[in-house]
């Protein structure tokens, strides 16, 4: 089946299926969402208004048997940052979108009536239905209700109360193979879906399949690719401890932001570490290893049970645990897991909301370390949309403005995640220059030496460090287009067979003859496209800066500050 663009206009409740414009054909995932948003969204529009569009795109390899290829990208102009935004996640939806022959779903306009709707996508198109029953409900209730309402296996994307209230931290949740939720967490895309009055989207590909141009070559390449992933020691660490394996390491480095970024080490880190979490999961009969989508061979996710052995949360990630843990000084893993579950249910970004809580704690809204208080605030204030609930639900910047706090760890109004840029300066360059606000996943470590994008300038100079960060972002943008999870990066970096096998997978899928250089060009094109959108939206180099306190508040225990000047950071865009 030839892939198509599916379009929904919420203003007149019409739908259509279109051929793919030639310019878009070579794109998938982030490359495609950013290309479409750049082409069709007025950069100065209000993110929650009629001119913003919400774009869903599976990766180039999604829907195939390629290992770890089930990430779905969602793009729009972000209500949190005001920049272009792409957020991607696992779950079953990417593979089902691809199998349904949907290269991208574009949702535009706002409904005229004050009604809520759901969308049902099949290979035949999209059906819009008015929704009443599930309005005001959390994501888990939506998953449960649709299990009963719809026959057969279907993909599901939904928003919780946070999206309905159009809070700037609202996410879009995607059902995973076990009925747990994965999130396109960052940038408030759930608020855009809420503005369009769409509570949920189901995806049913019927008996659709993804066509592979050269099946034998594809199979061979996938065998090599999957083996490289499985054998790599980082994959093994991820499979055993999840991403939370990083807690002890980052704390040891002094770069573990604690008590709203006032310290680099958290006394209670051992109680929330990946090692402690691993043992707790085992003792309580949870799952240490779990894939966020079928075909994941690394399985960094897990199922965390409560003390009674009942499932509490899934996909319990380092950045979420850090944010609710060290940044808010909570050393009780069960409170953090409970907060994680509530945030999944409300449909709100765990990083943004927890960092906002840290700023609120500094403002005296609740004491540092009050895990039970955080859970109560989430349930009674954010879920119900009280004044303080909305202030926190609109992110760390919103809390800082409401309470006159100056130590607000955001770039382009998006919360800085779990690695303090004073102690790990390379990440600071990524935070400052990312087209999408502070985001650790924007400059992941991918094949810099194999792709020969490692840099030409001495990496020990500031110029070389900026160049290295740039090349990481270029490579990351390309990988984000394939539908691959970023954890393939380590094998791709170290195993000389892995990256060529990934390129071979793309070639076999589409009958192309791409090389590593094409991958680099794709990444560069995506970054430039996103940057052009932001410039047209009014962003300048003055927005590519870290908050002032990173320059003048030394971070214990190493007592270091971030020391890249504005001019040095600005060289990032010299390409």
């Amino acid at each position, binding site marked *: 089946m030839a892939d198509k663009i599916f379009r929904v206009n919420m203003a007149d409740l019409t739908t259509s299926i279109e051929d793919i414009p030639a310019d878009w054909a070579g794109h998938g995932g982030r490359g495609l969402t950013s290309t479409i948003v750049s082409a069709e969204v007025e950069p100065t529009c209000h993110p929650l208004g009629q001119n913003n569009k919400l774009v869903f795109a599976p990766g180039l390899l999604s829907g195939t048997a390629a290992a770890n290829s089930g990430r779905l990208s969602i793009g729009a102009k972000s209500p949190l940052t005001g920049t272009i935004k792409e957020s991607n996640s696992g779950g079953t939806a990417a593979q089902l979108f691809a199998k349904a022959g949907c290269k991208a779903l574009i949702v535009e306009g706002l409904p005229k009536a004050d009604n809520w709707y759901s969308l049902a996508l099949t290979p035949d198109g999209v059906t819009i239905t008015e929704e009443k029953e599930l309005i005001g409900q959390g994501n888990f209730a939506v998953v449960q209700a649709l299990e009963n309402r719809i026959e057969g296996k279907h993909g599901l994307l939904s928003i919780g109360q946070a999206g309905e209230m159009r809070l700037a931290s609202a996410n879009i949740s995607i059902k995973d193979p076990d009925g747990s939720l994965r999130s396109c967490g960052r940038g408030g895309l759930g608020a855009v879906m809420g503005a369009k009055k769409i509570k949920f989207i189901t995806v049913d590909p019927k008996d659709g399949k993804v066509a592979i141009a050269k099946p034998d070559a594809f199979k061979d390449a996938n065998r090599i690719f999957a083996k490289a992933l499985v054998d790599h020691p980082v994959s093994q660490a991820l499979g055993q401890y999840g991403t939370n394996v990083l807690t002890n*390491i980052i704390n040891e480095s002094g770069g573990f932001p604690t008590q709203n970024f006032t310290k680099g080490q958290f006394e209670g880190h051992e109680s929330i570490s990946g090692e402690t979490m691993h043992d707790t999961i085992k003792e309580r009969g949870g799952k240490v290893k779990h894939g966020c989508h079928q075909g994941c061979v690394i399985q960094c996710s897990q199922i965390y049970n409560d003390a009674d052995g009942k499932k509490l949360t899934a996909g319990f990630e380092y950045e979420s645990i850090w944010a609710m843990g060290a940044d808010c000084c909570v050393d009780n893993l069960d409170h953090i897991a409970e907060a994680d579950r509530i945030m999944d249910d409300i449909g709100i970004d765990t990083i943004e909301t927890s960092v906002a809580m840290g700023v609120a704690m500094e403002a005296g809204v609740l004491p540092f370390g009050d895990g039970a208080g955080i859970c109560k605030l989430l349930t009674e204030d954010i879920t119900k949309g009280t004044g303080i609930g909305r202030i926190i639900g609109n992110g760390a910047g919103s809390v800082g403005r409401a309470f006159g706090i100056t130590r607000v760890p955001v770039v382009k109004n998006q919360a800085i995640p779990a690695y303090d840029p004073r102690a790990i300066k390379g990440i600071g360059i990524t935070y400052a220059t990312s087209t999408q606000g502070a985001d650790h996943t924007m400059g992941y470590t991918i094949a810099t030496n194999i792709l020969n994008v490692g840099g030409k300038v001495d990496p020990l100079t500031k110029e070389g460090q900026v160049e290295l960060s740039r090349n990481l972002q270029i490579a990351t943008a390309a990988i984000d287009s394939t539908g691959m999870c970023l954890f393939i990066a380590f094998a791709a970096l170290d195993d000389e067979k892995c990256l060529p096998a990934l390129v071979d997978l793309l070639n076999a899928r589409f009958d192309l003859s791409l090389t590593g250089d094409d991958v680099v060009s794709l990444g560069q094109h995506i970054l430039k496209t996103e940057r052009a959108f932001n410039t047209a939206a009014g962003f300048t180099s003055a927005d590519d800066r870290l908050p002032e306190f990173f320059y003048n508040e030394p971070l214990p225990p190493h007592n*270091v500050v971030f020391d890249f000047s504005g001019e040095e950071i600005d060289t990032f865009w010299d390409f």
Partner: protein
Amino acid sequence: MEDQHPAPHFQLTVASDALILFTTVLQSGIELKSRAGIPMGRFLNELPGFTADYIGDVVQTIFLNGTAIDDLTTPLEGHNPILALSAAMPGLAGAIFRKNSFHSALRTDTKKTDSVDKQQGNLTVTLKLFNSIAQERGLELLKKGVWIKTKPALVFFSKRESLLQKINTIEFEKKTIDTATFLSLLSQSEKINIRIA
């Protein structure tokens, strides 16, 4: 490495399937006596199971006093150096801190500029073992007996009460004691020697 601490000794026997869970106590660190100025690689080499290959291939992330280290000839000196060992870690941060990594250029320079006290004779090293390193090398260390600080050990057992139920016997000064006495004795000392098998 010499055992010179005058502190209480405990011997725990634990259900074999639960033994591995006790290796997590090593994330808080064990104390080892060594010679001031000993190269880090040689210090590690003297520990059970830390062969040159294991240190070279598996121990991919090393921190000395919170600074990532690439060079195994770095001497251990100063007052109570803290050494932490980990396998290869994910994320850009993991790559930045990885030994001899291409991305190490993105580290902040956290080496102390003030000169460390170059004392002679013995020194006490705190060695933290994280993730798979603790699981792979911890059992042997625990079997031999390790010196640990009691404060983190008490937190460990208070947060992981179920582990106390996996202990079959606790011996202290050739007498068997119960877990309540064990915890009470822990709170009376700053550090203890503990053998777990």
